[in-house]
């Protein structure tokens, strides 16, 4: 894949991100932040490769630690966001 193309994708994604977030009500700022935080755990894809293909012991250890941390970020992030969003209730929904 050419470097130019990767940078192209990056720039477009930045603009897309700005467009997506601009009009979010402040009630949702916390879940939005923890939800996007979970998405930033996408580095888990890099960590998987790192843990699975390490050239030597050091590389494998570094990669595995990366994988553990990224997995905590992903799993914890999504679950916590879900927990928060589950609490937001509207009039038409029954209170517990």
């Amino acid at each position, binding site marked *: 894949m050419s470097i130019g193309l990767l940078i192209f994708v990056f720039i477009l994604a930045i603009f897309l991100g700005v467009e*997506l977030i601009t009009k979010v009500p402040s009630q949702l700022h916390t879940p939005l*932040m923890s939800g996007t935080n979970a998405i930033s755990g996408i580095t888990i894809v*890099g960590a998987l490769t790192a843990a699975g293909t390490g050239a030597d012991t050091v590389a494998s250890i570094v990669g595995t630690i990366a994988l553990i941390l990224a997995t905590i970020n992903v799993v914890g992030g999504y*679950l*916590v966001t879900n927990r928060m969003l589950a609490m937001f209730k509207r009039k038409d929904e029954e209170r517990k």
Partner: protein
Amino acid sequence: MMDNIEVLFDFGYIVASVLFIIGIKMLGRPERARRGNMVSALGMLIAVVTALFECCLSFSLVIAGMVVGACIGVIAARKVKMTSMPQMVAILNGFGGLASLLVGWENYHSIPESNLFISIAIFLAVLIGGVAFSGSVIAYGKLSGKLSGKPIFFYSQQIVNGTIIIAILLCGAIFAYNPAASFSYGVFIAIICLALILGVLGTIPIGGADMPVVIALLNSYSGLAASAAGFIILNNVLIVAGALVGASGLILTGIMCKAMNRSLTNVLFGGLQAAVSAAGAGQQVQGEPHPISPQDAYFMLEAARSVVFVPGYGMAVAQAQHGVRELGDILENNGAEVRYAIHPVAGRMPGHMNVLLAEANVLYEQLAEMDDVNPIMDTVDVCVVIGANDVVNPAAREIASSPIYGMPVINADRAKTVLVLKRSMATGFAGVDNPLFVKQNTRMLFGDAKASLQQLISEFKEV
């Protein structure tokens, strides 16, 4: 045949990217936010499964790593209290940043002789990931009370920071041009250390009240670090997802800064400190506070036809959100119109108060934003301020010399009567005196917010 499989992998990553985009879009709409989060989680699952097919020579470490990480993640997410959510988000964010740093390290360690572009990407992943990690750890410490929430300054701080940044850039240049040279591993480790130090030094001068900005910014960093990791392994899903998070974090940072009427540089470099010490000498609030007993406060609330609650960080500290909701329900049954006005930077992270009130089962429709509630404040009988200070400080409107002058505030003082639940007359995090507390229409109910609310509730129940 190989080509077909490559296309399949790419397809998996494209689907994942699309699901992230749809998920973020849905997260911005209250009625679809929860499903949006699930859509984005599904995207993550697809990305991980695709990567599992693509990546691995040996699965033992991979499976061990994922099981350990998932267990910790599940336990942490289940156990964390809603009041601890800011530090939870901070530390998760730090883990993401550190993971990106380590991905960069592993790639460099395994293949030292890479081209200039990859070397720069490794440098950026390590730098941004390192700053995001150590910054988040400090933010975690401050938010959880393990470190003092006070901004920490030391002599010639800016010069030290500047020197570190220059050193990092120099090391980065040396590293990027000769990644395979024998001395470069040392330079690389130096970059990691300097990045970690920079994250610490960048976060310690930032006070507790500015934490919403910092968390949003660190969130942005961890996204950009993931993006940089994507450039290392030439994977578009990392680049796209990381860029989305980077952009959204920056937008949130901007919103938070605007809500405090301060620039990002001002928040990051602690401009408020100088302003407070300068103003502290001249500006003194004249007048005496008017304390009130719970009984009198009860009579006041009992007669009120419209009530607005303004919660602040004090409510989170006292864990008083359930008491607030209980009192709100009693007042509603008593015939009053009850609303909850929430300032964008109340609490320790963006939207902090909303989460706590939602936990206490306050309906979404009762939560009002500052701009909706200010125009009708004149018609409100009682405005109940619970553990909020700077966000209701009329000095921001009236006293041009005040350090927070110009910051948009909830105009609690315009209500017919203001009831302030507060522990003492201490100043808020900005360290600014609050003339609201001595206004003619303000009554102070001193004591722990939770205990005061319980007293009020029992007054109502006795009747």
